[in-house]
């Protein structure tokens, strides 16, 4: 369990946003560009202080669009980069997120979710950008988005986001929410022996033989660093292996399929989750982020009353844990899906279940968390009535 500590003496007391910043540095991030926005601002504040200490660079840009552009540029120049934002800024970044998908540039985008649409509830909780994380930028593209629930897990997921960005040459996303971003709790900082660090694969061929999108080396082509002598053209247009634009239907189709395949062939291993009291469960609660913490308390409460219920907590939202949901839909009679939006992830549970069965939401959008009691009541109802 992520929130447990074996040795209390080595614990630090950090805010969720602070955890992200420290983990980014541990992951090797040395460039941050951002435009501060509540409830993510502390990430920028800590990076501004910490990056110069480790030889990195912090830039506050004129807006979120520019910040996204800056981290793409710095990544092309060889740095591990990230930016952090919330709803309105996430919307603005979408154009350049698509650019990073198309140009295959590793970078990490953190979204500490708050109420929306628009400026919405700047200082209050929501989990309503989960579909935007998947489909916010236009066109077909793969997405890796992690949604941790405990501080230690936030640390490890932040590092994973950098690793996946480097490994697959894509922009990856870390989805926190206001409650987690602002929550201070004890965390035993993971020792470097507890995680791996992945650095992008660089070309093994001399500059004259290099193509930036050369799939003969696999679905993730080696990536040269700017200013090291390799010719590397970057564009948001569909391109061939040289990086220069093409409209050749066959090349465009092949390249787009490769860009999806490079991630989706690993979809199952990327889709991490935690099962809690699921062994003999007849009702499954599916949740993520801070809401999953309340859901766990609700499951314990229901178990005390003899209801056979468990929690499937998604740690990865994208790729979605399709297979696990499919299997569970054959074990349980019903799903309860609490989320702080009006029903987004529940659509994925319905899709992945491939079964006509009760799948019931518990939803709030007023800026406050869903209390465990509310989830408990729904579990009880579903266990009794089957809906």
């Amino acid at each position, binding site marked *: *369990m992520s*929130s*447990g*500590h074996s040795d*209390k*003496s080595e*614990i630090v*007391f950090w805010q969720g946003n602070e955890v992200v910043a420290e983990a980014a540095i541990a992951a090797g991030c040395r460039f941050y560009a951002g435009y501060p926005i*509540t409830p993510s601002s502390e990430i920028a504040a800590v990076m501004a202080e910490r990056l110069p200490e480790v030889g990195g660079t912090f830039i506050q840009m004129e807006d979120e669009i520019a910040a996204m552009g800056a981290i793409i540029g710095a990544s092309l120049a060889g740095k591990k980069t990230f930016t952090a934002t919330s709803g309105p800024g996430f919307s603005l970044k979408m154009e350049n997120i698509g650019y990073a998908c198309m140009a295959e540039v590793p970078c990490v985008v953190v979204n500490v979710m708050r109420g929306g649409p628009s400026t919405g509830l*700047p*200082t*209050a909780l929501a989990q309503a950008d989960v579909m935007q994380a998947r489909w916010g930028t236009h066109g077909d593209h793969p997405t890796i988005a992690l949604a941790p629930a405990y501080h230690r897990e936030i640390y490890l997921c932040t590092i994973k986001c950098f690793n996946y960005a480097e490994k697959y040459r894509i922009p990856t996303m870390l989805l926190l929410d206001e*409650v987690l971003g*602002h*929550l*201070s*709790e*004890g965390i035993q900082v993971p020792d470097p022996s507890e995680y791996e660090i992945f650095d992008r694969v660089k070309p093994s061929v001399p500059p004259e033989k290099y193509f930036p999108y050369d799939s003969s080396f696999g679905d993730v082509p080696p990536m040269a660093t700017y200013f090291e002598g390799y010719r590397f053209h970057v564009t948001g247009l569909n391109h061939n292996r040289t990086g220069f634009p093409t409209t050749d239907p066959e090349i465009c189709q092949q390249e787009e399929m490769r860009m999806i395949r490079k991630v989706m062939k690993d979809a199952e291993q990327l889709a991490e989750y935690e099962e809690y009291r699921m062994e003999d469960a007849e009702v499954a609660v599916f949740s993520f982020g*801070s809401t999953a*913490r*309340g859901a*766990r*308390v609700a499951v314990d409460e229901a178990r005390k009353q003899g209801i056979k219920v468990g929690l499937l907590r998604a740690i990865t939202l994208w790729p979605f844990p399709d297979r696990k949901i499919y299997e569970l839909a054959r074990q349980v009679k019903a799903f309860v899906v609490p989320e702080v939006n009006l029903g987004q992830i529940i659509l994925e549970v319905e899709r992945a279940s491939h079964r006509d069965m009760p799948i019931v939401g518990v939803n709030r959008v007023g800026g406050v*968390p869903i*209390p*465990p009691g509310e989830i408990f009541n729904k579990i009880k109802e579903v266990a009794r009535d089957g809906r």
Partner: protein
Amino acid sequence: MSANRFEARFSAVGGQGVMLAGDVLAYAAQKYQGRYSIQSPTYTAQVRGGPTKVDVIIDDEPIIYPKTTAINFFLSLAQGSYNAFLYDLRDDAIVVVDPHLVHKWDPKYRTYEIPVIELTKNHVGKVIMTSVVALGIMIELTHAVPKEFVEKALLEKAPKGTGELNLKALNLGYATAAELVTVQG
């Protein structure tokens, strides 16, 4: 959730400094007492003047749901915040209000009227220390965390050069509450 779980809420308006009080309390419990704790703030988009609160939970077991559900101690330095955040209280909760700013309060709860801001102004000299005085009051009334740990945490969290004044404020809180308990029971 253990039997020793303790939940506190400090509510005020933005700028009164209650976030720091919550931070010191939770940090003291975790770092020096070796217990589990969380600090969870709520505030508005206004820099100053919006209703704010900070919730602290201290427990012997890991804290899963990071929000309060049964508050032992509630402080309010403003009527608006009192009205907005007076929920999740246990029936036996202790409530402290500043009578200059909170005029209407629910007699259902054992409520102490303490002019925290005025006391701070008169005896510490800096209104910004109000939340530290309030923290001292809470510690004296609840014994939630041993004083020595609170003091250590406060000195660690306080800006450089303000340690002595912060301790003075904390002690004022202790003394005020102790006197009150003697008089009111």
